[in-house]
């Protein structure tokens, strides 16, 4: 019997899809009973969304004014308190979970497993190392709580339509005031979210400028796709950092990934290897991206993209 606590990621109003994917992962653990913990100022709305995920046993709602922003140093002691009695504590391998879960593990005095990509048993898991160039199978000790992050690109979202019970819980512990939220700025583009979009169009350094990148945005809008970028394009300042795909950016698994002017460094490829179909457009026929692409087209992106958009419109 495994008792698993999944830490919900949310923005105070909406549950992040990463939570449902963590539940999918947790549900694959043999004999798992899965609870979801929502830490918020007023957890009711988010807890209701978590309760509708199929496979969730109970939703624990912990209200606290200190939970207004997801500050790891504030959330971790609450999670550590509520982890008592659980065999596993899972969070998503997003920037939220990567920030929080190691801090939780250290407070509990245990190691943490990063980026679960497959469940092999109640204490056996696979995870990627070396930018996904090797896959590690590990066994966790049976006698300690297992704190882990779940590689969300490896799991489908769980079905909706469940009706788990929501219970208020007391997570009160002394909380630090040494870390204070100031601001968050993000692109509110109206485009699909890169991490969960079924189609993604991504551009690389070959776009040449922020202006050149408009071709990528334009094709993405035509397809109803999210926009992504290589590290080179982000470093060059063509697009903001939150569009970066790869080992140190976002790991994504869309149905369709169109890579435009991206050479395909291994650090980039690790971010897209779970994409269903990869299309590569590059003027260099020797570019490594073509090794992994399902469909490749060699040519000048500045003529190909407008043409592609035109033909898709027909």
């Amino acid at each position: 019997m495994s008792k698993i606590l999944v830490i919900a990621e949310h923005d105070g109003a909406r549950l992040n899809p990463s939570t449902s994917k963590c539940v999918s992962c947790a549900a694959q653990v043999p004999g798992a009973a899965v609870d979801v913990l929502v830490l918020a100022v007023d957890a009711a709305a988010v807890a209701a969304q978590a309760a509708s995920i199929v496979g969730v046993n109970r939703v624990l709602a912990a209200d606290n004014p200190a939970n207004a922003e997801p500050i790891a140093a504030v959330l971790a002691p609450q999670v550590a308190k509520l982890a008592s009695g659980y065999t596993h504590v899972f969070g998503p391998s997003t920037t939220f979970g990567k920030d929080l879960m190691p801090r939780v593990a250290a407070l509990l005095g245990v190691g943490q497993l990063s980026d679960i990509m497959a469940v092999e048993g109640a204490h056996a898991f696979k995870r990627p190392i070396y930018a996904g160039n090797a896959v590690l199978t590990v066994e966790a000790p049976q006698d300690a709580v297992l704190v882990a992050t779940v590689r969300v690109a490896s799991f489908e979202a769980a079905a909706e339509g469940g009706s788990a019970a929501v219970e208020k819980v007391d997570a009160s512990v002394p909380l630090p005031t040494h870390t204070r939220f100031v601001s968050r700025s993000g692109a509110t583009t109206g485009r699909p979210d890169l991490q969960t979009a079924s189609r993604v169009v991504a551009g690389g350094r070959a776009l040449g400028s922020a202006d050149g990148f408009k071709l990528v945005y334009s094709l993405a809008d035509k397809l109803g796709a999210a926009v992504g970028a290589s590290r080179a394009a982000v470093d060059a300042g063509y697009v903001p950092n939150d569009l970066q795909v790869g080992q140190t950016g976002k790991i994504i698994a869309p149905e369709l990934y169109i890579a435009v002017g991206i050479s395909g460094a291994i650090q980039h490829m690790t971010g897209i290897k779970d994409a269903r179909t990869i299309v590569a457009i590059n003027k260099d026929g020797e570019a490594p991206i073509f090794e992994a692409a399902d469909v490749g087209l060699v040519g000048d992106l500045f003529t190909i993209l407008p043409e592609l958009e035109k033909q898709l419109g027909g």
Partner: protein
Amino acid sequence: MRRIMVGVKRVVDYNVRVRVKPDNTGVVTEGVKMSINPFDEIALEEALRIKERGLADEVLAVSIGPTDTQQQLRTALAMGADRAILVQTDAAVGPLSVARLFRQLIDKEQPFLVLLGKQAIDDDNGQAPQMLAALWDRPQAVSCSKIEIADGKATVTREVDAGLEVLEIDLPAVMSVDLRLNEPRYVKLPDIMKAKKKPLDTVGLADFGVGEAPAFKTVRVDPPPQRQKGIMVKDVGELVDTLKKKGLV
């Protein structure tokens, strides 16, 4: 003494294409170029810049690893670190043990800031900074792309999935750095000569009473499943036809 402690991990160089050993016990590291973890290099560069702005007196580079790790610490000294400590061990040391070890060094060295890379590019764990902050009961700022220090506090910009997040944290604190924080300097030959005279102390892992047993047992290591090589199309028309046939557009 206003001291910054920087973690420096020896890893397989960024440009090496890593191969899994035929017996599935790990990856091939024999005869492979080793370097400072690129994120740690950025952490060190930031420490040096903070010192150059007059906000710190000493930059201390710390590594945990085999004797050969002295090479990476000499590079750190050549970049500008004032001194270095190697905690010598041939065992693989997991993030929790690293954090426990750094926690002990903090008691001895009393830094006001610990700068670490946000992840090492070998294990891709990304845990040690957060664990250290927890054990130290101090603030953590993960994936920093901007750091400003004034009046015993720091204002840090973090790269998060939604964009950028700004936190104000009290010092001392642990920060982990992201790619766009800075561009590390190149080491010049005279600096390499100077670095040979800088202090590099070696201590044994056993001196710390931190268990080196990894938290998780490695069962096996496999190469990733390979994607099948796809098809090349000759023009946009054929591309659109192919995507339509696959039901993707």
